[in-house]
């Protein structure tokens, strides 16, 4: 018997892989956060400071010693180097200032000097904006912010008795973004625990101790790195979240490698390398362009991403289940934002699917039965002509029907007038709008059912009918006992397929009704598209789409059961 292999190398590999991934992830994350999100927060903080100052000065009466006292009280809480000025428009006065240069001769209150004209101009500008906003109902920003080299210059209007009398002007140094841990720190966090594991070759030879050692050292390495990073950044919520997430990813990797998953995966890869070589190009493509986008979309559904915050890290705009709650909460006809509620759209979607598939199946079946009549002349010609609607690209079909239903020049309204009816504005009423889409989709979907049924009908052996006739069965009895059961194996999958197609028939709804009137004829998929690409609410649209996926998945599981059940018969 050979001695069982030591678990120490595996623990070492697990620790190395887990630490490298966790530290690299959090390092990159912190880097990105310190560069991107920081500027936005600093700006918001600066705006908050100038707004507070304006409030304080207004409460102190906007002028005189009280206002100057408010200014210096405000100054006490500000970072060093901050300068605040209070400018009064009437008389172009500098009412108060915390600028260290404004002492002695220049001490406030005094008239503004020639080289301080910009301060007067800014106060006037702000007064203009406030007046305009009040008169014309605009909502232009009433705080001016300018990002200069190393500092912010801000201005906010000061009101007295409801009218703007002046402005506070603030010059505030911009702090450099907090430091993120450098490369040496990251390397140390990976290397030190590994070095610590090196001498434990004996102690960690068996499975249990090896795993324990790897876990403890992993925790030490990641924990140490996190503590260092948080100290550098001076705390902060999303930093902790980022570190926690990468630590979890790394931990999963440690466990995977340490428990032998990686070794087994490698063995399988080597043993089945030919099979994997064939499967990998397609799988890789699917992974990158189908499965990853899907997962990313699901992650997006938990965020409040819109067009305007696409550069923000996802942890910062994380909203949890809020999107789902918003979608599923409204039971009324319309959402608060005016779009139709999810339940209305779902109900419409179900009605749309059921009516379309029923029409397709019944028309297709009847035509197939007729075309299957023996001795009927011109059958091949009828068949080809009846398939044409299915052969046309469906976006062209949709645009053609949209044109035919045109209020003024559409053929359908001319035909109505021919029979003495009034022309209709088809897209102004939910019901008539629905009819246009139904007509279009019915037109393009019956040939599929017809072809499927015809194929099944032709495969029924003629002697079955012969035998039935000999036994004296009526035509209806033959239909029930022979035709329908033989159609079932072909029709059931065809119906299942066409339910999925119709449920998601984006082109027809999008191009024919476009949801008119006011979104009532949207189906779920077109509604999701509108949220994403007309309202730019990416996170919300992703949540909406995820709900659609869950509905389809439930349907898929259900149909799988049904087909199994019918196959058993």
């Amino acid at each position, binding site marked *: 018997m050979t001695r069982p292999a030591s678990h120490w190398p595996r623990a070492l590999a697990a620790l190395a892989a887990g630490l490298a991934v966790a530290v690299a992830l959090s390092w990159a994350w912190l880097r990105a956060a310190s560069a991107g999100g920081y500027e936005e927060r600093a700006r918001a903080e600066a705006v908050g400071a100038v707004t507070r100052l304006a409030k304080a000065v207004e409460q102190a009466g906007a002028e005189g010693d009280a206002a100057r006292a408010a200014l210096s009280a405000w100054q006490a809480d500000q970072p060093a180097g901050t300068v605040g000025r209070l400018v009064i428009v009437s008389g172009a006065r500098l009412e108060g200032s915390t600028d260290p240069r404004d002492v002695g001769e220049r001490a406030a209150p005094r008239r503004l000097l020639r080289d301080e004209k910009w301060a007067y101009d800014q106060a006037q500008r702000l007064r203009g904006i406030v007046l305009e906003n009040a008169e014309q109902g605009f909502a232009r920003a009433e705080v001016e912010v300018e990002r200069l080299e190393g500092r912010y210059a801000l201005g906010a209007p000061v009101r007295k008795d409801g009218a703007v009398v002046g402005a506070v002007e603030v010059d505030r140094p911009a702090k450099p973004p907090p430091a993120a841990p450098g490369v040496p720190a990251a390397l140390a966090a990976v290397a030190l625990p590994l070095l610590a594991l090196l001498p434990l070759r004996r102690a960690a030879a068996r499975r249990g101790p090896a795993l324990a050692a790897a876990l403890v050292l992993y925790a030490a390495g990641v924990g140490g790195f996190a503590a260092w990073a948080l100290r550098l950044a001076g705390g902060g919520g999303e930093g902790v979240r980022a570190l926690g997430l990468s630590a979890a990813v790394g931990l999963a990797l440690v466990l995977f490698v340490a428990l032998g998953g990686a070794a087994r995966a490698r063995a*399988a890869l080597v043993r089945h390398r030919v099979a994997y070589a*064939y499967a990998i190009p397609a799988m890789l493509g699917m992974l990158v362009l189908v499965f990853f986008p899907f997962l990313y979309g699901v992650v997006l559904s938990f965020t409040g991403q819109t067009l305007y915050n696409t550069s923000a890290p996802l942890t910062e705009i994380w909203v949890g289940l809020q999107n789902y709650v918003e979608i599923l909460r409204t039971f009324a006809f319309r959402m608060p934002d005016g779009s139709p509620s999810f339940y209305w759209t779902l109900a419409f979607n179900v009605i749309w699917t059921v009516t379309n598939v029923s029409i397709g199946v019944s*028309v297709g079946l009847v035509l197939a039965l007729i075309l299957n*009549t023996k001795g*009927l002349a011109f059958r091949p010609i009828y068949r080809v002509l009846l398939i044409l609607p299915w052969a046309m690209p469906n*976006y062209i079909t949709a*645009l053609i029907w949209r044109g035919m239903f045109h209020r003024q020049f559409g053929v359908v309204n001319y035909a109505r007038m021919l029979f003495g009816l009034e022309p209709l504005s088809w897209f102004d009423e939910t019901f008539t709008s629905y009819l246009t889409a139904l007509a279009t989709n019915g037109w393009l979907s019956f040939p599929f059912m017809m072809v499927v049924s015809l194929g099944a009908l032709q495969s029924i052996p003629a002697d079955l009918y012969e035998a039935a006739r000999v036994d004296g069965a009526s035509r209806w009895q033959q239909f029930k006992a022979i035709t329908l059961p033989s159609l079932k194996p072909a029709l059931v999958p065809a119906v299942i397929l066409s339910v999925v197609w119709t449920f998601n028939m984006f082109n027809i709804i999008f191009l024919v009704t476009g949801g008119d009137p006011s979104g009532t004829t949207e189906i779920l998929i077109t509604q999701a598209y509108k949220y994403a690409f007309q309202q730019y609410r990416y996170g919300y649209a992703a949540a909406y789409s995820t709900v659609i996926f869950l509905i389809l998945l439930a349907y*898929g599981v259900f149909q799988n059961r049904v087909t199994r059940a019918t196959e058993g018969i």
Partner: protein
Amino acid sequence: MASRREERIPHWILHAVLVVMVLVAVYPLLWVISIALSGGQSLALASLPADPGKLDLLRAVIPWPERFSAANFTAVFRDQPFGRWMLNSVIVSAATTVLGVFLASTAAYAFSRFRFPGRRAGMMSFLVSQMFPGTLMLIPLYIIIVTWLGLGSTRTGLVLMYATTAIPFCVWMLKGYFDTIPRELEEAAIIEGAGPARVFWTVVVPLAKPAIAITALFSFMTAWNEFILAATFMDKEEMYTAPVGLRFFVGGFSQQWGYFAAGSIIVSIPVVVLFLYLQKYLVSGLTAGSVKG
């Protein structure tokens, strides 16, 4: 006892039903052809007087242009960049076909001939991926294709997306066909010393030609008829594909119905011909795939 004579429906009734249905099926197509041949951009088949009588209305409903002109067909190429859009569509569809068939046939071969860990999961994941709503994928795809890969408004980006989205259907279909090819032929080749790659390219692929042809045509039609992805990713007018261009003629405030009709006919003829030639295979492929699911 009832009479033994069949209670048959007279053939003229069947013909009547079929003729009505054929008229319904063909009318929109005749409508689009008449508009294309009318030479104008109007949506109406006939220009009507202010107070039209029955005859005028009849004229407006019958799909027969008032005068014939090929002006729309020449103008879409001369005055509009339709030729460019067609070229884009041809390139994208051809590249999608080549890439899609390569990816699908190799993968289908692996799934058909080898038993390996992840095989069942792979096939199931292909099925489930058919339920992913397109809107969920669009934003992440946009990030990957445009932001990360820098392939916005390029044909390469579209080809990559089309080829991968066609994979699941093609793999299921080809796998079904490969399953029916007897293994003995491959084993004979292996005994003669052929490696796995030789076996695949010289034995399996030639035998599966019919199925591969269908797959190729399916990939081609997917790319040729696709509208949403192309509309989302192709921002520049000169990079439009034919579907996006056709929508450009009649979408929004543009009402160039003559151009649209002429373009539609040019775009449709190849797919309609292919489709009529192919449809029986397509149906058997579709239903067979879903039964096995």
